[in-house]
């Protein structure tokens, strides 16, 4: 994962213009300085210790092998972006991390996903408890058809957290929504705009004090202004949480992420189409010096 790339050189033949988040680089640098990854030798900002280790993870939907052989680490307190063309299994792969695939009839996950030292796919792990620790934000904002306050309190109640006014406020502040809704906490969540609803969903996820937040194309239903607000929010959240974000927007991945995993589709001998992990690396490396020709083809816009 550690690559020695000369930034001067790569900037010249860089296929797309890169806007790497300054914050992302800073976080990486501080982790390196604290000796989190002693092996890092380049000027490249390195990534922190992993919170997830995916080992040969795959997903079957009945007889369809949707995703196969994903092996990668997800660094703690950083943003990992999953990019790739439609149908490459990004969302499917993401849903393995909080066992949401369990809810899909006929879905079966193979391989191992170590969370800390334990395999969270193991059949004796309680998926309900796990989902309280690994939150999720969906593609389309899905607030509950209740008040803003109720939306936040539900998650706390099911996780045994006392739903106090302070906690509600804190979650809304963290999700950069407090100033807009502080006078109408009893208002229907549906009365908010799309971008506000999505921030409410993020607040709802934060309110249960998770360790990781998974986001499945959280901005794809939003306009550019709301997208920017969510992206700023994600960068702030990465200081305290680990974020794994699925996006099909490469500019977004370049703007926010520390690590990028590129997935693509491969045909199999049986005529099936399977999602595979083509390449994983730091955002700078993937966007400036992709090693896999498929990654390069995708990020230069020749395919996808």
């Amino acid at each position, binding site marked *: 994962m550690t690559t020695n790339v000369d930034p001067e050189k790569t900037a010249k033949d860089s296929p797309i213009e890169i806007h790497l988040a300054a914050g992302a680089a800073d976080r990486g640098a501080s982790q390196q300085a604290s000796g989190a990854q002693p092996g890092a030798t380049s000027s490249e900002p390195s990534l922190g210790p992993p919170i997830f280790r995916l080992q040969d993870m795959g997903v079957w939907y009945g007889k369809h092998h949707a995703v196969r052989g994903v092996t990668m680490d997800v660094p703690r307190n950083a943003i990992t972006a999953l990019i790739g063309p439609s149908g490459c299994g990004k969302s499917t792969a993401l849903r393995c991390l909080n066992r949401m695939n369990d809810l899909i*009839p006929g879905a079966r996950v193979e391989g191992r996903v170590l969370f800390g030292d334990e395999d969270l796919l193991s059949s004796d792990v309680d998926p309900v408890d796990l989902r309280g620790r690994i*939150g999720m934000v*969906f593609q389309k904002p*899905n607030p*509950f058809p209740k008040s803003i306050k109720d939306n936040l309190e*539900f*998650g706390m109640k099911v996780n045994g957290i006392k739903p106090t006014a302070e906690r509600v406020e804190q979650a809304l502040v963290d999700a950069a929504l407090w100033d807009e809704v502080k006078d109408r906490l009893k208002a229907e969540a549906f009365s908010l705009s799309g971008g506000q609803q999505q921030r409410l969903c993020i607040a*709802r996820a934060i309110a249960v004090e998770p360790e990781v937040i998974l986001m499945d194309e959280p901005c794809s239903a939003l306009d550019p202004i709301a997208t920017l607000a969510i992206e700023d929010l994600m960068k702030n959240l990465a200081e305290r949480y680990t974020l794994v974000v699925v996006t099909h927007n490469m500019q977004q991945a370049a703007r926010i992420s520390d690590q990028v995993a590129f997935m693509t589709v491969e045909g199999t001998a049986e005529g099936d189409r399977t999602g595979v992990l083509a390449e994983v690396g730091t955002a700078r490396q993937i966007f400036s010096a992709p090693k896999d020709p498929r990654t390069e083809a995708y990020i230069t816009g020749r395919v996808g």
Partner: protein
Amino acid sequence: MSTLETPAPPPQPPVASTVRPLAKKRARPSEQLFKWLVVGLTAITMAMLIWLLTSVLIRGAGSVSWAFLTDKPSSNPAKAGFNSALRGSIVLMMVTIFFAWPIGVAAALYLEKFAAQSATLTERRLRERLATGRVTGPGAAWTRIRLWWLRIRPRVVHLVDVNISNLAAVPSIIYGLLGLAIFVGVMGISKSLLAGGLTLAVLILPIIIIAAREALRAVPMSIEQGAMALGATRWQAVRSQVFPAALPGILTGTILAMSRAIGETAPLIVVGGVVYSTAVPSLNPLEAGNEALLAMPLQIYFWTDQPQASFQAIAAAGIIVLLATLLVMNLVAIILRNRYSKRW
């Protein structure tokens, strides 16, 4: 292409010569024919309905009065009132809803939210448990039964599905026979409001189940997934988010099912017969087992069966009261639907 000295281009030809002239409005006889056919058929339906309503109103309006609603039945048509029938119908509805609603909604919740859920992991866990050999004797047998159930569950659910849809279409008199055989025959309940209410409960059970399932299905999966992604169990997600969101729809369906039940005559005739009674049923539903089976449609049926013309008039008055009740119930259902229905 040409030199700069070329003279001004030739004048443009008039527009009309380059565009085909617009067609003039023309008659389309088949279109007209179809329109009038539809209008005519609608008019026939409306005319029949209006004729029915006006004839009932003309005959019965004079007899509808406060006294008519509060008086006991009597063999004298001038003194006969609708009070017993009204009370009977109210108690019937209480009994019906008390039994049909919880059972119907529970069945809908199970079929819609639990029976269809993924069993892949449960199956894997049970298989692993058997494979380790730690469970023995009755424990192992129970595990095997659960595995067997998970395997046949989709087929059982499908069978139940098909049967519920069919039951909703079974003629109501069949339910009357069923009620007579089971509630009166086997369970030994007297031919009372209780027996009648239970029969009507069975009659509207499939309607409630179908309506409740539709209401539950109308709540997007994203709500349930959102709740479960926060660490809620399926039951917590369904109870706190999906069910409240579906409740207006469930209640609308329930009221429509009740308005079906309140007008049912045939099953009540089969269960209790048409009896002449001057008793005034208590409005306490706990007494329903001891009260004679009286209801609005039964009383109307009884009166129309009498030879005297003055009984026909109070039968028409009874129909007006029944129709007014139905109208109010349907109105409540419409208000509920319009007011609380959510656009996702």
